[in-house]
């Protein structure tokens, strides 16, 4: 860490991890309700549990992105942040808004479009917070050295704010509502979020492998180019069955098949960089999370997305547990893991110590990732069975769900493993720092940049 103002990232990472804990706890509760459906059914019905689970996820990922930006932009731009104070005020407002929303949800104060349940005043507050953030990082970037990483990150962040504005448009016509709703949801997670993810990954690769910046930057342009060329028209895979024209079945099938490409390229990129560089960074856990992120994003977002993206297949699988399986692994692989990677990388610098608790951290990687993989398999099989019984045989929804009970128990078990992994991770990151290293890492290894 070369710049004092990077320290604000510490507060962002702490807030993100707090909400991560909330997301996982509430997710576990949702998993319990699936197998023991009378749990809290009147006090906190499933619709509110799920609302908190998904909202907490989105908010912690965003806070993590903000923190990552505040950490890496000063280092890339080679100047102090424009205003660290503004960054902390922004965090305070955002966390207040998030907590107010969650407390409101418990008391049935919410709107009713999926993921956009925040009351309008909170949506407006989110816009204000986003503007504070964009002002702060844009001013910093303009003052300092311009790099491809900061440029792509800025495009991604401005895109996030811009597309969020569609959340204010809620027409009475349900089909129109759904079409523009995807302007927020799809153009975020299969569009501009990928820019944020790729630029953080590129930053980590430069720092940890020491491969020449020129090479990393060309790769970065290739990755984000593939992401947007495929992802923008790939929105078409949400426009198959909602009252939109039939031509989306062609556009959506073709372009969303291509959405695998950027994720595959990220795998090739990250492994190539590590292989090319002769050095090894002492923070082995951060390297594990970075490579794991590329691989899990490829499986979760890439392959599991492709699994049900072709229109003739999606006709049968749309809105079944197959979608749930994909959603879980894609968010974990692409966005949770990139956050956990940058946090693992940055924390030793932010705490002013050598890489610490490496073994614990890597155990949490395997526990969390193994749990998520098993959860994905369980839900995928549940989804295939559901698709056949409900969509081919035409069996009643609730009857079919009873047939899936075993898979929901397996999912809950997997969720417990993930929860244990999260606890381990939080302890490894925030607990007492023990600077011992894995035996396989000689002390002569040095950071690359």
């Amino acid at each position, binding site marked *: 860490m070369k710049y004092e103002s990077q320290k604000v990232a510490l507060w962002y990472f702490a807030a993100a991890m707090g909400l991560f804990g909330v997301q996982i706890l509430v997710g576990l509760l949702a998993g319990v309700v699936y197998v023991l*459906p009378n749990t809290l059914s009147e006090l906190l019905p499933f619709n509110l549990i799920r609302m908190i689970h998904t909202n907490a996820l989105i908010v912690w990922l965003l806070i993590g992105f903000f923190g990552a930006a505040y950490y890496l932009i000063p280092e890339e731009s080679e100047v102090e942040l424009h205003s660290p104070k503004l960054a902390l005020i922004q965090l305070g407002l955002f966390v207040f808004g998030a907590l107010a929303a969650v407390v409101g949800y418990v008391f049935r104060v919410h709107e009713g479009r999926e993921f956009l349940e925040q009351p309008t005043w909170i949506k407006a507050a989110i816009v204000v917070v986003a503007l504070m953030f964009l002002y702060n990082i844009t001013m910093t970037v303009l003052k300092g050295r311009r790099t491809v990483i900061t440029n792509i990150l800025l495009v991604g962040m401005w895109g996030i704010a811009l597309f969020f504005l569609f959340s204010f448009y809620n027409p009475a016509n349900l089909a129109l509502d759904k079409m523009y709703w995807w302007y927020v949801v799809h153009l975020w997670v299969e569009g501009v979020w990928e820019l944020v993810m790729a630029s953080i990954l590129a930053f980590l690769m430069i720092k940890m492998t020491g491969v020449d910046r020129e090479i990393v930057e060309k790769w970065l342009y290739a990755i984000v180019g593939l992401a947007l060329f495929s992802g923008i028209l790939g929105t078409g895979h949400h426009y198959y*069955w909602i009252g*939109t024209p039939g031509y989306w079945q062609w556009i959506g099938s073709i372009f969303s098949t291509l959405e695998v490409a950027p994720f595959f390229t990220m795998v090739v990129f990250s492994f190539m960089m590590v292989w090319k560089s002769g050095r090894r960074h002492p923070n082995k856990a951060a390297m594990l999370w970075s490579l794991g992120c590329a691989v899990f994003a490829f499986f979760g977002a890439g392959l599991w997305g492709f699994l049900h993206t072709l229109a003739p297949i999606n006709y049968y699988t749309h809105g079944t547990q197959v979608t749930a399986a994909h959603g879980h692994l894609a968010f974990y692989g692409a966005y949770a893991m990139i956050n956990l990677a940058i946090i693992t990388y940055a924390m030793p610098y932010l705490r002013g110590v050598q890489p610490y608790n490496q073994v614990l951290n890597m155990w949490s990687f395997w526990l969390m990732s193994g749990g998520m993989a098993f959860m994905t398999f369980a839900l995928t099989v549940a989804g295939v069975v559901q698709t056949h019984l409900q969509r081919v045989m035409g069996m009643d929804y609730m009857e079919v769900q009873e047939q899936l009970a075993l898979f929901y128990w397996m999912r809950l078990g997997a969720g417990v493993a993930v929860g244990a992994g999260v606890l381990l991770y939080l302890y490894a990151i925030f607990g007492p720092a023990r600077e011992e290293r894995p035996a396989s890492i000689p002390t002569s290894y040095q950071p690359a940049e």
Partner: protein
Amino acid sequence: MTERFTKAAARNIFYGGSLFFFAAFVGLTALSHNYIVNKGTDSAGLTDAVARGKHVWEKNACINCHTLLGEGAYFAPELGNVWLRYGGDKDHEGAVTALKGWMAAQPSGIEGRRQMPQFNLTDREVEDLGAFLEWTSRINTQNWPPKLSG
């Protein structure tokens, strides 16, 4: 990557290509908007009751258990075609009555069965919700879902 493929070239391809695809997407969205209003949905039949019913749907966060045209949570049945399951296309009044009965009977309290909350809807709200679900069942969804079971 070769020397000939410069960073400037990569940058230009990225920004140029992204703008091109975004423009294409916005154009297709505009066409689709027009299609939805004129062909995909019954704009003339989108009454105040339907709009109010959509608000009832949203106010009670139905989407966080059910799916609607396949989107939402996967915890409770698909409701895009529930109006047809209730036989509302043949007997409108019968379906409204059945819906009122269903909403009043929740939660069932049956052990081991998923529970739908009691939303304390007024008669008028249930009628509006029915109008919304009826209107939704007539959206041209390219014949989705494949079965009446949703």
